[in-house]
């Protein structure tokens, strides 16, 4: 979806404002927001790509004006509401109205360090040979899907060069719809900054974008 999250190349947001000695969290609720978002991932009711799409498809003005952990909380509530795991009334009042649904896994405190350290790799065994090879010129497709995609707008239609082959990774565009992992070869594509942003941009800079095979065509 061409949404507010796809920010690459926008010029309207002002300067970057790094905070000196920034704490990991700015308030206690942020700690719980992080922990709940990570913790609920283990419930197995959605995957990484579904949760990313839940956040990026929040109302555009909400996405653009709220802090990141506010977006995470809103995304989590949305995912749970969609799946009947909570009701809107429960979120409002905090009073339990319906019992919880069955979840895949509830990680205990004892199990959590190992669960975090294990992570969740998205690499999968290759079923096919890669369609592109290092050094090859490719064009990013001009696609505008209504669902989730990880091909940013600023590279669509642009020509770059394959500089890395990362193996087969879960394909977000289908995984985000619950339509399966459909792993595809993932490539590191180097784009010349002037190809992306025109001749006024500084010469010699490059932007590397990780692209799945079905985002690309031979150029």
């Amino acid at each position: 979806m061409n949404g507010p999250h796809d920010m690459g190349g926008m010029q309207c947001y002002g300067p970057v404002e790094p905070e000196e000695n920034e704490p990991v969290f700015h308030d206690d609720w942020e700690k719980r927001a992080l922990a709940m978002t990570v913790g609920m991932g283990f419930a197995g009711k959605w995957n990484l790509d579904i949760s990313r799409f839940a956040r990026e498809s929040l109302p555009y003005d909400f996405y653009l004006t709220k802090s990141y952990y506010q977006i995470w909380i809103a995304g989590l509530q949305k995912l749970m509401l969609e799946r009947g795991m909570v009701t809107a009334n429960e979120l409002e009042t905090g009073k339990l109205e319906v019992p919880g649904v069955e979840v895949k896994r509830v990680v205990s405190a004892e199990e959590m360090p190992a669960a975090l350290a294990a992570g969740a790799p998205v690499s999968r065994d290759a079923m096919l040979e890669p369609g592109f090879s290092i050094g090859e010129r490719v064009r990013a497709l001009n696609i505008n899907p209504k669902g989730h995609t990880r091909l940013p707008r600023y590279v669509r239609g642009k020509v770059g060069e394959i500089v890395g082959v990362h193996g087969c990774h879960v394909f977000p565009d289908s995984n985000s719809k619950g339509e399966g992992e459909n792993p595809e070869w993932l490539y590191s594509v180097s784009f010349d900054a002037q190809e992306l942003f025109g001749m006024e941009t500084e010469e010699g800079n490059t932007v590397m974008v990780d692209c799945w095979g079905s985002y690309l065509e031979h150029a």
Partner: protein
Amino acid sequence: MSDSKPNSHNHDGHSHDHHHDHSHWSDMDLKVKTLESLLVEKGYVDPAALDVIVETYETKVGPRNGAAVVAKAWSDENYLEHLRENATEAIAELGFSGRQGEHMQIVENTADRHNMVVCTLCSCYPWSVLGLPPVWYKSAPYRSRAVIEPRAVLSEFGVKLPQDTKITVWDSTAEMRYLVIPQRPEGTQGWSEIKLAELVTRDSMIGTGLALSPDEISS
């Protein structure tokens, strides 16, 4: 600074003198507490396990991990070679693995080429080596401008590269996570890895900073 600015600042103002309406912050506190009590009552999460998640990212997983990797890369040619070939494995050798670090790649700065990492689409960041991302990394100004005017963004961090040092920006659009290996500062011959690690800042591993010089830590 106004609240309407796209998640560009630390947002709570606790450590800042921004005039800021804090009422929405206590609203968040209530909203998050309500949500957590529901998740616990419904049996979706173990609150003690959530405490472990917070503790992990507040005290255990942070940029000192990455600094140890960089210091070893500077000191040990064999280790650097291992990082180039299989960064995920080489980093795990030092005990750093897990969420948002499942697929690691290093990118090495040289006199000719400076690397900088962004996620234009959300907030992808190598948690296993750097911890949770700072607010600016997740903010609209950084996410939008890093790809189109990296040199101007660097200047907002006080980094001024020679004009003939060209910039490569890595947009983390997939699950590959990038760790910048900054240039080793002059005057550090014979330094131990522990001492070298003191020169390695978080920002130098994102590419929005340089490693500190020996003078900067002695003062």
